[in-house]
Structures are given as C-alpha cells and as structure tokens.
C-alpha cells in the first residue's frame, strides 16, 4: 500500500510539473499589476510597444527617417532599362513612419527610372531602440 506522504509528494510534483508547462498570455499592464502574483510576472511581459509606452518610445526615438545616399549621386542622371538599384530608409519607429518611408522610396524609384520602376525585393533590418530599417530593391523596365 502506498504511503500517504508519498502520495502527497506525487500530487505536488504533478501539479508543479503541470504548471511549468503552462504559459500565460500577457494582459494589459494595469491588470497584470493587480494580479496576486504580479511581482513574479513583471519580467514576463514586454509592454514597450503597447499603449502609451509605444507612443512615448516613438516620440523619444522619433527622428526623421534617414534617406539613403546610395541613389543621390545618380538620381539626376538617366538610368537605362534593366538597371537595378536599392533605396533605403533608416530609423523607422512606427507603422506610420513605415508607410511614409515606403511611399517616399517608391516615389523616388519612379522618378529615378525613365520608364516604370519594378520592385525586386523588400527587406527590413532591426536597429537600435526597436527601430527598423527598410530596404527596397528596384529595377527599371
């Protein structure tokens, strides 16, 4: 017959194991801080891009997106059909910045080509403080 103490240990071990497999979704920070186990969960959730934090981060980091100089030298000269070129914008800190940066690069590309500008590749690079760099590769057709 199994001893009661061993049964208790087995139950506790099962419960602890079960809990370790359970992940908790992050609720809004104000709710997390009201929870009974708040101090053990502060490090679990990243609110840096949420709510007021996202807005404050954006204002703190917001700089005008930097234009690449890669094209500036050749922008005034006519480009032959088939030529490939890359345009980029750095330090994009928000969704709105991303939209504006993409629009600016597309416009810049169409001005650069004599004919139509076609997108070959679009890529993103992480930057400091959560900002993003946007890279767009075009060719003229």
């Amino acid at each position, binding site marked *: 017959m199994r001893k009661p103490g061993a049964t208790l240990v087995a139950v506790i071990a099962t*419960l602890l194991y079960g809990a370790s497999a359970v992940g908790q979704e992050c609720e809004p920070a104000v709710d997390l801080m009201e*929870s*009974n186990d708040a*101090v053990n969960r502060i490090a679990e959730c990243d609110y840096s891009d*949420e709510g007021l*934090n996202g807005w404050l981060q954006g204002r*703190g980091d917001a700089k005008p997106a930097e234009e690449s100089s890669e094209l500036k030298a050749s922008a005034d000269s006519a480009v032959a059909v088939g030529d490939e070129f890359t345009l980029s914008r750095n330090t994009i800190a928000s969704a709105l910045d991303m939209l504006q940066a993409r629009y600016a690069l597309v416009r810049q590309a169409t001005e650069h080509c004599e004919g139509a500008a076609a997108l070959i590749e679009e890529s993103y690079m992480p930057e400091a403080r*959560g900002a993003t760099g946007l890279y767009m590769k075009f060719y003229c057709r």
Partner: protein
Amino acid sequence: MRVPFLLAAAALVSAQASADVTVYGKANVSLQHADEAGNREIELQSNSSRIGLMGQESLSDSVAILYRFEYETSVDDGDKDGQTLTQRNIYLGLQTAGGTLMGGVFDSPLKTAAAGVDLFNDLEGDIRSIFAGENRPKNIVQYVTPKSLGPVTAKVAYITKEVDGIDGVSASAAYKLEDLYLAMAMDQDVEDNVDNTDTYRLVGAYSLGAFQLGGAYEKYERHIGSGDGYFASLKWSLTDQWILKTQYGQSDIKVEGRESFSLGGDYIFSKTAKAFAYFTTNQDDAIRDDDYLGVGLEMKF
C-alpha cells in the same frame, strides 16, 4: 501637476528605454443614477482611474530590482482628497531566486488574494461594501515566494507600528493552475488599526468554457464580536465582444444583514477598451438601502 508627471514619465521612458520602464494605467468613468436611501442624483464617477510606472532591472544574473509607483487620479472632477494625484501602490523590491522582498505602501496579501474574483471591483458593487480586509497599509514589508514554486504563490507581510502603534501581519497562499484559482489569507491587527482583530478569507475561481465562477468566504473577529460573510460571482462570455456578469454577497462583518447584488455587462472594443453597464443594490438592516444604475467606459494603456 498632471502635465509635469507625464513629461517626467516621457523623459524617463525615453531616456531609459532599455531599462524596461513601463507606463501603465486606466481611465474608468461611469455615469450613474444613484438612489441612496431615497436621495436620488446623477453622478459621474471615476472608478479608481490611475496611472503608474513599473519596471524591473537586473543587477546581476541572479538579482533584480523592481519598482512600482502608482497614483490615482479622478477623471470626473480632478480632485482626489484635495489632490490631483494620490498614492496607490508604491514599492521598491529586490528579487532573487529565493523570492522577492519589498517595502512601501501597497495592497495587503489578504486583499490581493481576491484579485480577479470580484467582478465589480472599483464600482459600487465592490466587495469592500461587505467584506473587511480591503486594505492598502502603509509602512509594509513583504516577502513573496519565487516563481520557481510554479502554481503556488505565498506572501507574508509585516506592517510596522509607525502609523498607529500597532504591528500588523498579513499572509496569503494561493494556487493557480490553468483555469483553477484557490487562495487562503489572513490579517492580524491590520483592519481598523485596532488590536485583536483577525480576518480570514478563502477564495476560489474556476473557468469552464465561456463561464467563470468565483467566490469567497470571510470571517472577521475582534474583541467586541465577530461576523462572517460570503460572495459568489459568475461571468459569462457570450461572444468575444459581449460579457454578462453577476455577483451576490451577504455579510454581517460591517453591518448586520448587509447584502450586495450586482448585474452587469461589458462590450469589449479591444484588449484595452470596453464599455459597460451595471445595476447594483446594497442593502442592510441598519444603514443602507441603495441602488445604482450606470453606464461607463474604460480605457487601459
């Protein structure tokens, strides 16, 4: 005062983005018709609207410092006890693999044990109308067991005698696993700042599909007598947007024969915004015969 605070918060977040400072809070405002023993009026209520800063920073691989500075602000009239902002939970703590030691002014273990079960928290149907122990003591030092204990969180707090000359102790043990939450807690000489008061509380909650059941039992003892009470709550998530909830409690702790019944509904706009409506009646054998009907809006950030 509010503007400098926000500017300070902005500066702090901007300057120390890597230090995991989080600005958080909520605005919760309701317009309610209050009928308090026949005295009827329309009221705009700020239901514990607040703003705070919290964060955690590693001092080494095994030691972290954590902090929280939370203030209440009255969205309805801008005045909270003569102040624009009043202190809520404020603490500074040290966290290691062995647990967290923290000091400041913050909700007692007995109070936080019922977090999430009171569905009308901060409204007229808040369990503070029937239960003792909803305290935020000053000069409190608390130990919290580490996360490595899994579903178990235990707290022990000591309240110094600085304020009233009486030492107090509050403790709790909670078990949380998936949809089940159980807790027991006690206070000694914390309530009413008098000697020989003991409060005991049992709390439970369980989620079953779209339903969440909750409840608590409390016994309060003091040298001139004792009382007990209970409450039960039910939340029903009809859809992702609509939630119905109700709560009933009865207690002899504060006044003989006090009852509180609430019925309400939430409309969820997003994870952070909701509209809500509620009806609450608080009655007892001696003082209160109050009804409240309200609608409100909440924004968390």
